[in-house]
C-alpha cells in the first residue's frame, strides 16, 4: 500500500469508506519503516504488536465521520512518555525505562484513536540541533543521507519527510521542532507556551519546552494541534484558553489580504545563507502579491537570544536532570562503594558529553557568586527580548523569517564545536524565550536541500500562522516535492 502522497483527510476518507482498514494501514506503515529505516534511522523503538492490536480493535468498532484521526498511525518523539513503551530520551541513563503512564499529549492522541507506531530518535534529552548527541543512533536527513536531519526532533522530522508516517509529535525548547522540519522540508509547529500540556514530557527547560506536531502539510498540522492542545490539571502552566478547530478555516476562503507582516532585518543579517535569504524574500513577495503588507521591522536584541537561552535552558536543565541519580529508575553504576558513588558514577557514566556540558553551564550559572551575573542577567535580557516582539506584534499580525541560517549541514561537521552548533538556533530561540507560537514550513530549496520559512505569531494566535501557512502552500509547490529514497516513492 502506498500512502506517501496521502494526508490525514484522504486517509480518513479511505478508512471511513473501508477502502483500507486501520490494520492494513498500520501493517503497511511497519513494512515501510522496516524498508526505509536502515537508511534513515528515525526510530528508536517500534510498537508493532500493540499497534496492530489497537488497529484491529479500531476496525472492529468502525471509524465514523467525526473521528478524523481514528486508525491513523503516528510516531512519538522519545522524550514523551508512553505507557509500557520504552522511553529513553535517547540517553543511556534511561535505556531501559518503561513509563507507567502516558503523557497527556499521547493520551489525547490515543483518545482520538491514533495508533502509536513507535518512538523517534532525538538529541539526548533534546539537547542539540542535529540528533547527533543521541546515545543510540544517527538519524539521517530524508533528502540526503550524508546530512544531519536537524534536531532535536530529527527522528520525527525524518520519519514524516521520508513518508514513514503522516504525522509525528516533536518537542521544541529552542527550535527543536522548527529546525528539523526546515531541514527535512516538512511542517512543524511550536505552539504558544502553555497551549499543550507538558505532562509526560521529560523536562529539559521547563519555562521553554512545548510539544507540537510535525506533518507534511499545514492542514494536517492544524488538525493534530487541535487534538493535543488544551488545559490539563497535571500541568498548571497549561493555559485555560479555549482551543480552536485550527483546521476549520483552512479552505478556499482563507486569505492573507490586508494582513500586516513584519520581516525583521536581523533575520536576514550576516550569517544567513544567500539561498535562504532569497527564499524568504521570494516568500515575502508571494505574500505581497496575495494582498498582504510586508514591512521591514527590527528585533534589536535578537542576537542576545542565544546567550540568554543557553544560560536559562541550561540552568533549568541542571535542576530538572538532578532526578537522574541511579536510585528510582534508569541506569545505576555497578562499581560503587557508597550512596554518593551511585549518584556520581551513574550520572557520569549515564549522561553523554552534551548533556554534561549543559548541566555544567547551568550549575555554574546558578552557583553562589555567579547567579546575579549570569542567570539573573539572562532572565532580564529575556524580558528585553519579549518587549522587542511585543513592539513589532502590536501593529503586525505576524513575523516572517528563516528558520535556520543554513540548510542541513554535513553529518559530523559541527558536533565538536558547541558554539557553532548553538548559533544555529539564533532565529528560533527568541521565540521560545518569549513563549510565542512559531510555524516552520517549506519555502524553497538550496542545492536540493529544503529551506524552511518561520512564521511567528502573537500568544495563542496559532490560527493566523496556520492560515498564512496554508495560503502560502496553496500558492507554491515546495511542500509537494518529496525526497527520493527508493522503495515506495
Amino acid at each position: 500500500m502506498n500512502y506517501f502522497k496521502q494526508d490525514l483527510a484522504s486517509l480518513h476518507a479511505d478508512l471511513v469508506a473501508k477502502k483500507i482498514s486501520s490494520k492494513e494501514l498500520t501493517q503497511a506503515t511497519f513494512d515501510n519503516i522496516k524498508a526505509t529505516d536502515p537508511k534513515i534511522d528515525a526510530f528508536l523503538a517500534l510498537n508493532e504488536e500493540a499497534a496492530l492490536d489497537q488497529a484491529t480493535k479500531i476496525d472492529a468498532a468502525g471509524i465514523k465521520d467525526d473521528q478524523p484521526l481514528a486508525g491513523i498511525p503516528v510516531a512519538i518523539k522519545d522524550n514523551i512518555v508512553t505507557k509500557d513503551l520504552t522511553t529513553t530520551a535517547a540517553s543511556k541513563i534511561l535505556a531501559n525505562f518503561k513509563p507507567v503512564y502516558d503523557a497527556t499529549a499521547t493520551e489525547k492522541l490515543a483518545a482520538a484513536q491514533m495508533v502509536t507506531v513507535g518512538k523517534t530518535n532525538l538529541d539526548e534529552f533534546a539537547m542539540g540541533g542535529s540528533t547527533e548527541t543521541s546515545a543510540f543512533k544517527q538519524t539521517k536527513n530524508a533528502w540526503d543521507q550524508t546530512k544531519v536531519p536537524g534536531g532535536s526532533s530529527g527522528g520525527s522530522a525524518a520519519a514524516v519527510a521520508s513518508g514513514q508516517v503522516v504525522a509525528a509529535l516533536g518537542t521544541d525548547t529552542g527550535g527543536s521542532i522548527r529546525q528539523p522540519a526546515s531541514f527535512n522540508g516538512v511542517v512543524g509547529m511550536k505552539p504558544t507556551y502553555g497551549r499543550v500540556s507538558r505532562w509526560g514530557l521529560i523536562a529539559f527547560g521547563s519555562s521553554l519546552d512545548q510539544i507540537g506536531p510535525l506533518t507534511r502539510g499545514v492542514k494536517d498540522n492544524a488538525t493534530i494541534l487541535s487534538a493535543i492542545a488544551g488545559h490539563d490539571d497535571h500541568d498548571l502552566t497549561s493555559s485555560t484558553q479555549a482551543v480552536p478547530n485550527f483546521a476549520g478555516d483552512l479552505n478556499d476562503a482563507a486569505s492573507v489580504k490586508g494582513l500586516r507582516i513584519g520581516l525583521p532585518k536581523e533575520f536576514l543579517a550576516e550569517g544567513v545563507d544567500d539561498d535562504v535569504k532569497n527564499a524568504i524574500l521570494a516568500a515575502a513577495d508571494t505574500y505581497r502579491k496575495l494582498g498582504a503588507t510586508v514591512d521591514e521591522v527590527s528585533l534589536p536584541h535578537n542576537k542576545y537570544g542565544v546567550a540568554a537561552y543557553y544560560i536559562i535552558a541550561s540552568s533549568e536543565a541542571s535542576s530538572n536532570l538532578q532526578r537522574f541519580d541511579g536510585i528510582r529508575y534508569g541506569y545505576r553504576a555497578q562499581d560503587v562503594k557508597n550512596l554518593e558513588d551511585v549518584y556520581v558514577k551513574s550520572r557520569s557514566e549515564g549522561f553523554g558529553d552534551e548533556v554534561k556540558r549543559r548541566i555544567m553551564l547551568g550549575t555554574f550559572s546558578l552557583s553562589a557568586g555567579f547567579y546575579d551575573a549570569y542567570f539573573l542577567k539572562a532572565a532580564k535580557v529575556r524580558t528585553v527580548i519579549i518587549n522587542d516582539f511585543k513592539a513589532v506584534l502590536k501593529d503586525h499580525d505576524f513575523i516572517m523569517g528563516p528558520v535556520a541560517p543554513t540548510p542541513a549541514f554535513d553529518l559530523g561537521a559541527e558536533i565538536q564545536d558547541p558554539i557553532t552548533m548553538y548559533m544555529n538556533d539564533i532565529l528560533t530561540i527568541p521565540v521560545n524565550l518569549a513563549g510565542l507560537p512559531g510555524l516552520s514550513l517549506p519555502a524553497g530549496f538550496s542545492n536540493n536541500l529544503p529551506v524552511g520559512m518561520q512564521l511567528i505569531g502573537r500568544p495563542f494566535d496559532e490560527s493566523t500562522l496556520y492560515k498564512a501557512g496554508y495560503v502560502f502552500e496553496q500558492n507554491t509547490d515546495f511542500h509537494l516535492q518529496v525526497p527520493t529514497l527508493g522503495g515506495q516513492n
Partner: protein
Amino acid sequence: MANRINRDQVQHVAGLAKLEFTDAQLDAFTPQLDDIIGLFETLSEVDTDGVEATSSVSDQLNVMREDVADDWGQSHALLKNAPDAARGFIKVPAIIDESEDN
C-alpha cells in the same frame, strides 16, 4: 585561555552537579566552557537597569489546588523501573563507605 573559568572551578562545579571527569575530559571541557561563558558575557552589553526578570511566560498565575494525598496504586509498577528493589522498597548501597565498614 581559561580567563573566565579554570580547571579547579570546573572541578568544583562538577562536584556541585554530582559529575566526575577524567583529566582528559577536564582538559577538553575547560576551554569549551570558558568559550561558552565568554558568549554569555556578551549580555553585559544589554542595558537591563530597572528591567524585571522573566521566569515564566505562562498565562496561568498562582493556580491553587487542595493538597490531597493520592494513592496512585502504582507502587508495584514503579518499582519495576528501580535498578534494585526488595519487599516493596528500593535498595541502595550504604551511605557510609562499605569498605570502611568491613
